[in-house]
């Protein structure tokens, strides 16, 4: 049976894509951010997950407002990165795991989460940046991916509780897959930031730290928060924390924090990273 070995979180700021392309790993601005990742890469090299289920939000590459699904999942053999319009270099495609995707779709829809299914899906920085950070050599490693896209573009967004429950359904789906595969769940985005309005530049360190603490042992803390409440605490785009909660929902076992990193600011954002081990 497939086994969920752990959960990762990472901010997915576009500027990181540029910094990776320019190899600014030791640049004084970037170093405190990039230094968080090597221990996690070592852990991944040891554990060797076969599949990454990546919970992310599309920022206007694959989806437009003509059709804006609340929850969508990829079921494609390959996911391509494409021009997003502002100059991040396009990176190599990611391998899919379509049979596993369809198993998740069958299971999660039976579980009353009616996902939009995508046999073609372009993936933007929301998906690509964390993949690049955790698996810089993803092309050679051949890690296979399943993107799960959650709407954070157009309100109403799904609530923290709904996202957590979707994560639980995804977790049950993965653990009922008959092949012996190791799966890691990646929750992307966050932490606090706001790009738009007179409140642009808002960052809330205290709330970010609370999120990083509570999501490990007490994710229920967030489940009765409203989306508005989350926007107030984390900023209009910091609401991406619902993607972290989706990841956390999928970790059904005993969860132990292995590594964390937090740094302000990267671009306009409080940048956070976690590596959680999930023991059956």
């Amino acid at each position, binding site marked *: 049976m497939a086994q969920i070995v752990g959960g990762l979180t990472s901010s997915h700021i576009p500027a990181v894509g540029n910094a990776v392309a320019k190899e600014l790993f030791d640049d004084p601005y970037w170093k405190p951010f990039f230094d968080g990742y090597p221990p996690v890469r070592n852990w991944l090299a040891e554990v060797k997950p076969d599949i990454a289920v990546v919970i992310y939000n599309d920022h206007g590459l694959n989806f437009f*407002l003509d059709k804006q699904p609340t929850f969508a999942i990829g079921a494609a053999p390959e996911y391509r990165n494409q021009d997003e319009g*502002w100059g991040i270099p396009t990176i190599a495609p990611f391998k899919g795991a379509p049979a596993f995707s369809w198993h998740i779709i069958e299971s999660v829809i039976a579980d009353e989460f009616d996902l939009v299914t995508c046999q073609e899906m372009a993936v933007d920085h929301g998906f690509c940046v964390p993949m690049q950070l955790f698996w810089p050599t993803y092309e050679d490693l051949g890690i296979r991916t399943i993107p799960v896209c959650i709407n954070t573009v157009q*309100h109403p967004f799904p609530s923290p509780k709904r996202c957590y429950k979707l994560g639980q359904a995804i977790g049950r789906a993965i653990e009922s897959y008959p092949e012996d595969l190791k799966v890691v769940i990646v929750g992307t985005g966050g932490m606090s930031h706001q790009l738009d*309005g007179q*409140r642009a*530049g808002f960052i809330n360190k205290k709330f970010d730290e609370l999120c990083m603490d509570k999501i490990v042992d007490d994710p229920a803390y967030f489940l009765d928060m*409203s989306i508005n*409440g989350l926007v107030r605490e984390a900023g*209009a785009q910091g609401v991406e924390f619902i993607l972290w909660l989706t990841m956390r929902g999928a970790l059904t076992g005993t969860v132990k924090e292995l590594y964390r990193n937090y740094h302000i600011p990267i*671009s306009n954002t409080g940048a956070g990273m976690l590596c959680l081990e999930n023991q059956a």
Partner: protein
Amino acid sequence: MTDKQPIPGTTLFDGAEAMKGYALNKMCYSFNSRENRDAFQADEEAYMAKYGLNEQQKQAVRDKIVLDMIAAGGNIYYLAKLAGIYALSVQDVGAQQTGMTLDNFKEMLVRQGA
């Protein structure tokens, strides 16, 4: 939804905004393609007319004022693609919206980490 208290300096992009801003956001979405970015830059007025922007949206784009674009229904994720054409970063956009200099805005970001 019990929590509908407004958040200062924040426009939640909901159904009403999405309807209002559809043409502007659709134009900005088209900027994912290099060819479309070039066409816009070659003739901004013709390109805006082609996407059916209303006068408020056109004027906001002509003036390059992000708050006006948001007031006209613009969504920041799509507007970012327009800002990219002018090589504006999210710090430039933040500074403009808050009325700060770029240096002051960046300093404000750093200060929040202290």
